[in-house]
């Protein structure tokens, strides 16, 4: 009997069911009808996903060189498994599943270390006191890295990658409700971090205050120069 857990994964990968029921046999006939992509087309579609894979990998590990290695591993695995790709499904979603699995495997081998660097944060955080102004991207990147891995991948897939909750749940192998909850909590956490309820937000506000004070002192310096010149 085909398990629903297997079926769920079958959205992206071809499952070969057993033939214990008529429904399963019918499904098998449908799958047989799917003509696999030829190698050239597969390669072309794989190449088109590279930018997205890099962005997703970077959001997972926070380091561009590590992300590129992860994408390279993903491409090799995808190529080796190309016979299992269903052309009527999303290549991007399929490769994201592979990339995520590569990342988890490497995490288990402790290849990745803490992605958030407090020193870098201190050096790169910039002031932006205007709540309506665009956020500084470095702040957003760092806030992202502060999130838990589950929330981070959820918000990237749905909030930036353009996946639906259903697709993101398939990629992360979780329930749609869980995905919605993760995205919601990630949004709230990011808002708190970027708008002052956390160390990043507090620093942003403090930097804004420091910058305002520097402006005032600078203006005073200029004024005093003028007064000194007049006195002379």
């Amino acid at each position, binding site marked *: 009997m085909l398990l629903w857990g297997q079926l769920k994964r079958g959205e992206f990968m071809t499952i070969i069911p057993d033939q214990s029921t008529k429904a399963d046999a019918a499904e098998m006939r449908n799958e047989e009808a799917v003509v696999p992509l030829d190698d050239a087309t597969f390669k072309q579609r794989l190449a088109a996903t590279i930018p997205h894979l890099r962005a997703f990998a970077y959001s997972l590990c926070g380091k561009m060189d590590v992300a590129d290695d992860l994408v*390279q591993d993903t*491409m090799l695995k995808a*190529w080796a498994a190309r016979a299992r790709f269903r052309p009527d499904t999303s290549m991007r979603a399929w490769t994201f599943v592979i990339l995520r699995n590569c990342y988890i495997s490497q995490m288990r081998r402790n290849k990745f270390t803490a992605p958030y660097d407090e020193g870098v944060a201190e050096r790169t955080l910039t002031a932006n006191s205007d709540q*309506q102004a665009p956020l500084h991207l470095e702040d957003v990147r760092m806030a992202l890295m502060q999130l838990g891995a589950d929330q981070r991948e959820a918000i990237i897939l749905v909030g930036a990658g353009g996946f639906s909750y259903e697709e993101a749940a398939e990629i992360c192998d979780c329930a749609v409700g869980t995905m919605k909850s993760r995205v919601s909590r990630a949004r709230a956490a990011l808002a708190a971090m970027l708008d002052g309820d956390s160390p990043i937000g507090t620093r942003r506000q403090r930097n804004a205050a420091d910058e305002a004070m520097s402006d005032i002192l600078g203006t005073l310096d200029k004024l005093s120069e003028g007064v000194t010149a007049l006195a002379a």
Partner: protein
Amino acid sequence: MRTSCFDPVVMRQARIGRSLREVYDGVADSPMPDQFDALLSELDKIAVPERR
């Protein structure tokens, strides 16, 4: 009761969403290292396909 559609919470979430997409696009649109072109041209040789 709020009458404006410019709910600050919604505006803030939209701003964060926009920034997230910028972070994502910033990486996606960045120049691709040469290693990927090389890999694509070598794929046939590198990976042994589990083929049909």
